């Protein structure tokens, strides 16, 4: 079977997700300006430890091999280690994303002693000024301290996870050097206009010239750098980047949010892309296998306005979430279409009329945060 027909199979959906993100909590010690889930404050409807374990039981029965845990900051949950251990004991590997605030020497040693565990430390700049403008004051030092602690505890190869913005594209080589220094693996992903990111996307997303820079850099380093296959829209520039060239939402990917709602992917926390809730009868398995939303996403999708474009096979029209939250039609070009085919449509959408995320767990605005948002938009 050729790679292409395998992609066609995957578009029809798998029996269980291969990339399941589970955000454990909306609580977070940080307030990043591009947070996909608008996190900050805990939601009182948050799943209990017992409910969380029930989900892990279901995922084990579905033979989900591993999960990506995020938040919010997942380590703020008191039962974080309990859930981690329960998951791994049930044959579900865990990769979790953290800002590193809670990885002190003792926690680093505890994490290093566990099997089937990957850690991603989020970092959006190789210096405090670049990073903290997006992730908040002190967050650079926080991440570096966590990396030092993991290194000292001989954790092994953790990951440094970077959201690529206009302000850090020029630092890609330095990020790679930083990762090499810690014996870590670099992961770079695409900035999405989701959550609070919807408010900052216009100022932070890479320019078209920078997109070409990212593409060329990935062609050169792609085999050693993880991307979550998030840059497939750049394939329209030429040779395909390594990875799966398709939108996996509802087909091979999904998100479980802290209150048990299941969304098509981590970038579309909006009622329109909500498939159900794990608390409903039948639990997660029923949502994955039978929800109307996921079944419709597994039907052949229209290329719409992109149908006549020669690059459609290469870029697949890009990211559904990016289109949705910038107010573009889902069957048209991605807002960052490298051919510029979305530019005109984007220019006539009045700012503020785009769909808004259904929930916002941001902390009340403080003067500090206002200041940071402004400094991030230079």
């Amino acid at each position, binding site marked *: *079977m050729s790679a292409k027909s*395998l992609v066609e*199979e995957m578009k*029809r959906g*798998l*029996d269980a997700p291969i990339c399941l993100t589970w955000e454990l909590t909306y609580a977070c010690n940080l307030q990043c300006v591009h947070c996909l889930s608008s996190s900050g404050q805990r939601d009182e409807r948050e799943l209990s430890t017992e409910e969380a374990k029930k989900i892990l039981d279901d995922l084990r029965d579905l*033979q989900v*091999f591993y999960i990506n845990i995020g938040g919010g900051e997942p380590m703020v949950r008191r039962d974080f280690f309990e859930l981690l251990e329960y998951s791994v004991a049930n044959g579900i590997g865990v990769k979790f994303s953290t800002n590193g605030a809670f990885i002190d020497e003792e926690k680093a040693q505890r994490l290093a002693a566990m099997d*089937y565990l990957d850690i991603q430390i989020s970092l959006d700049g190789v210096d405090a000024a670049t990073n903290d403008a997006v992730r908040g004051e002190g967050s650079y030092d926080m991440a570096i301290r966590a990396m030092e602690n993991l290194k000292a505890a001989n954790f092994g190869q953790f990951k440094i996870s970077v959201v690529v913005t206009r302000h850090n594209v020029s630092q890609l080589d330095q990020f790679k050097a930083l990762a090499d220094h810690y014996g870590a693996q670099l992961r770079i992903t695409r900035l999405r206009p989701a959550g609070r990111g919807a408010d900052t996307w216009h100022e932070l997303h890479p320019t078209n010239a920078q997109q070409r820079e990212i593409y060329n850099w990935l062609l050169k380093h792609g085999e050693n750098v993880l991307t979550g296959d998030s840059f497939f829209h750049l394939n329209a520039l030429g040779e395909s980047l390594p990875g799966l060239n398709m939108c996996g939402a509802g087909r091979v990917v999904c998100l479980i949010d802290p209150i048990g709602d299941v969304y098509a992917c981590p970038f579309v926390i909006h009622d329109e892309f909500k498939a159900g809730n794990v608390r409903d009868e039948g639990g997660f398995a029923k949502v994955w296998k039978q929800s109307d939303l996921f079944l419709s996403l597994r039907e052949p999708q229209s290329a719409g306005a992109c149908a006549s474009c020669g690059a459609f096979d290469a870029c697949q029209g890009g990211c559904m979430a990016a289109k949705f939250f910038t107010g573009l039609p889902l069957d048209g070009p991605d807002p960052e279409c490298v051919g510029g085919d979305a530019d005109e449509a984007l220019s006539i959408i009045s700012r503020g009329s785009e769909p808004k995320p259904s929930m916002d767990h941001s902390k009340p605005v403080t003067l500090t945060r206002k200041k940071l948002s402004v400094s991030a938009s230079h």
Partner: protein
Amino acid sequence: MTVALESVLEIHPQVAVRPETFGALAYHYGNRRLIFLKHPDVVTVVQSLNSHPDVQSTLSACGVAPERWPSFVAALSSLETSEVVRERQIAS
């Protein structure tokens, strides 16, 4: 190692196999790699390896016609490279 009809193989103990309509997905918990088994017959063979003395007897037992054996040996070689299967360890 080169896989041949007389090779003695087993599923790698760190690999889990999940059936899918196109065949199966295999996940290696050690190297974190996801591998696609793109034909249901290959899945059957891989899952039967541990119950038979060698590759040839596994293929026979799974009802694979001899003219298809070379392509199955090739498939098993590539799966050996990606550590989905390995030479059977005496202790196991």
